[in-house]
């Protein structure tokens, strides 16, 4: 298979879906010129009517997506950085999540919300915060985050075809990660709601996603021989594939959840609580989380040791296996 970067994989998903379905379009700020390469060059093929730049007016911009979705189109709304979605949060969380259900499950709202997220750029909190946990807290919205070029292309395609609002951020720290992706024209998708065992193991399970998945794989490789680490990528947070996780725990009986979100209220807490309820008897040790400490993400030189990193992951694995 050919190798492409993570961000190019997203662009391929856009290209293929936009060619396939004329109702797909992208709306954002400076997406024509492309702040990030996933929209680069698209305007040349699809024109400014389908690669739509708006003023710095997140509510109006998101309104283009939201309203057009009600009108039967399939918009992708690009918030540039994840935190910017908070500027129109009542719309993109509550009003979006409740639209279908509260109005009687009669009218779907097929739209995609994306943005770059995550630490590693040293830009501090408002440019570095994760959003998957926050959106996963609000019902009626699917939430997923790919970790490899293969998954990125397949999951973005799934998200665009889904009849629901899907929040699918991408981590800036793996933007240039290369990986194998099927040939152009091979119209594969990766379904939302299905976890993926990225590395098999038998001593301990690590659930990690995105940049942190890469960290987890690095640690698993490092520990190989000493400890056999199974690394699961949830891929989706809503819906969440609990079965794959519990099946793994039947084998390993130990779990470390790595999540680049705050300890308080992040998705790792939800996973831990669910395992408590549904897999208590499987556990030989308490589920341990590696998360952002409960402080606004500092920028500068602090980011690298405040955020989850291989050292912290390794320490957590050793602790649950002790």
């Amino acid at each position: 298979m050919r190798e492409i970067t993570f961000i190019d994989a997203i662009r391929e998903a856009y290209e293929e879906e936009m060619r396939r379905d004329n109702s797909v379009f992208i709306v954002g700020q400076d997406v024509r010129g492309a702040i990030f390469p996933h929209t680069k060059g698209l305007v040349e093929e699809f024109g400014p009517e389908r690669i739509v730049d708006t003023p710095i007016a997140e509510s109006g911009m998101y309104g283009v997506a939201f309203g057009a979705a009600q009108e039967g189109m399939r918009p992708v709304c690009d918030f540039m950085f994840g935190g910017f979605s908070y500027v129109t949060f009542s719309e993109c969380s509550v009003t979006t999540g409740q639209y279908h259900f509260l109005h009687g499950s009669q009218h779907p709202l097929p739209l995609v919300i994306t943005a770059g997220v995550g630490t590693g750029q040293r830009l501090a909190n408002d440019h570095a915060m994760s959003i998957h946990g926050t959106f996963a807290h609000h019902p009626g919205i699917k939430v997923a985050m790919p970790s490899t070029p293969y998954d990125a292309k397949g999951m973005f395609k799934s998200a665009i075809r889904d009849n629901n609002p899907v929040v699918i951020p991408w981590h800036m720290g793996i933007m240039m990660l290369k990986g194998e992706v099927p040939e152009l024209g091979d119209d594969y998708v990766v379904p939302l709601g299905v976890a993926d065992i990225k590395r098999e193991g038998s001593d301990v399970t690590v659930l990690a996603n995105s940049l942190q998945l890469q960290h987890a794989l690095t640690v698993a490789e490092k520990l190989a021989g000493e400890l056999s680490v199974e690394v699961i990528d949830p891929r989706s947070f809503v819906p969440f594939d609990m079965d794959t996780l519990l099946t793994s725990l039947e084998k390993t009986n130990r779990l470390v959840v790595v999540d680049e979100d705050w300890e308080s209220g992040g998705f790792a807490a939800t996973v831990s609580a669910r395992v408590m309820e549904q897999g208590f008897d499987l556990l030989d040790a308490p589920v341990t989380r590696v998360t952002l400490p409960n402080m606004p993400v500092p920028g500068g030189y602090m980011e690298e040791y405040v955020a989850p990193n291989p050292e912290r992951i390794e320490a957590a694995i050793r602790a649950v296996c002790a």
Partner: protein
Amino acid sequence: MALTSDQMVLLYRNMVRADQFNKMMYRRMMQGKLIGFYHPAEGAIAPGVGASTFLNQDDNLSPHHRGHGITHMLCKGIDIKYYLAEHTGKETGCCKGRSAFHFSFPEHKVYMMSGFIGYNFAPVVGWGFAAKRRAQGQVVMNCSGDGSYGQGRAHEAMLMSQNWQLPVIFFCENNGMSIFSTAQEMHPQENIASLADGFGMPSIIVDGQDVFAVAEASLQAIERARTGGGPTFIEAKTLRFNEHDIGTPDLSGWEERSAEEHEAMRKREPIRIATERVLGDSLLTQNEIDQIIEDALAEIEAVEQFADESPIARPPVEELMAGVFAD
């Protein structure tokens, strides 16, 4: 745009229906037969009727929350019984009894309600965007109150609609009040329509107690939007006869609205104004008017019967969970 006699009679009929529907809602709320709250529309019937009566089926309509959008929706041919059933917590409700006071009639292009004032401003941009792309003359009628124009969302919607020349009508039903606050105190200019100037958007200020004047202004804006002329701001000056919502005191600032204010206000009762006009212009006879009222009451009786006789919505949680996502 001069109205034809047929148009005027239709407007008059819709006024009577809207008025009676509002009275029914008020009564039912007092009777404990409605879920949640109700924001009565007495005194403010004409704007919604004038704005909505001449929309096409494929035009988008975002009704104002005053009167819970009923005065708007029934003029667009929506059968209100499903909304009343909803508001009564019934299985047959337009939202399956889940929503309390929300409405949704996607097939009529009335998509939604949200409890956040100003929620309409984001989606209307998207509807206008879709309409413009589709290029079939579809129009977006965006109705909301003077208070909603405090929201920055209004700015973003006006900016983008004017910039892209979208077929969106910003229809402001200015009743001079936002709960206890007066527009006079909360807005720096006399007219909310002044906001449109900031964007170079054309605006019309109209007597919101005169349904015919409102309809004329609306037809003018609809025509402009339909033919690619871009958005229009319409400010309909209207009144709120009752308290903001039933059970809330009727204050201005923190004092009771005065008897004088009420008296002055009620001189501008929109049904009476319309009745004088149709009688004066010999468009209808008193007998015909009586018949229109009777028809409205019969319609309402059937609507209430439907709501009352429908079973209460109490589906199991599992069934609800299955409705969170679309397939």
